[in-house]
């Protein structure tokens, strides 16, 4: 298995796809997360992402290893952006190549679901009337 795990200031979707493509695998599933222009109807001006980078990279590597073991994933790329992001900009891309497409779908969904639960990255949402750290409070 090849894996590409990165935290960057600007996402290149294509880099993730090219990394996992190979003549040995027949199917690639990707998830791309972008900044939405509203949250529950309230316009979002921008987001700011902060990470605890060395730990975030380790947790992303754990996700890649688990995907390889559980779904026989051949190659996986997990790239997350940090810093300021405007609506429409890409925040995260995950690309998974596997011999069977069902496995590629399952592994890609596992990867994004788990990333949101375990990878130390935080998002601050900026509105016209202020800003909040997302999900911080109950």
């Amino acid at each position, binding site marked *: 298995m090849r894996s590409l795990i990165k935290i960057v200031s600007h996402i290149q979707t294509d880099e993730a796809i090219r990394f996992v493509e190979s003549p040995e695998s027949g199917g690639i599933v990707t998830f791309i997360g972008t900044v939405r222009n509203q949250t529950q109807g309230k316009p979002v001006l921008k987001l700011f992402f*902060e*990470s*605890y980078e060395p730990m975030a990279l380790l947790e992303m590597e754990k996700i890649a290893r688990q995907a390889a073991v559980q779904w026989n994933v051949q190659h996986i790329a997990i790239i997350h952006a940090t810093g300021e992001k405007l609506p429409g900009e890409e*925040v995260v891309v995950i690309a998974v190549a596997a011999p069977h497409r069902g496995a590629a779908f399952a592994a890609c969904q596992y990867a994004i679901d788990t*990333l949101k639960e375990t*990878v130390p990255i*935080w998002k601050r949402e900026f509105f016209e009337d202020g800003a909040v*750290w997302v999900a*911080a409070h109950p």
Partner: protein
Amino acid sequence: MKIMFFGITKELAGGPSLDVPLQPATVGELRGWLMERYPAMKNLRAVMIAVNKTYAGDAQPLAEGDEVAVIPPLSGG
């Protein structure tokens, strides 16, 4: 012992890191000290502690030189 803060805890602590005057014996002891010093952290949905870049339970012992981070609720992705 030095601890790092991220996200909203960085704001509540007034900076990215802090020297804890006493050496807490466990993660739980550190947590208690933090909640006393920064009561607003009690209002967060959850606060996890990472030791040497791994999530740690309250029972885990702490040693000098450990890399300790305060992890507020995650919102990546």
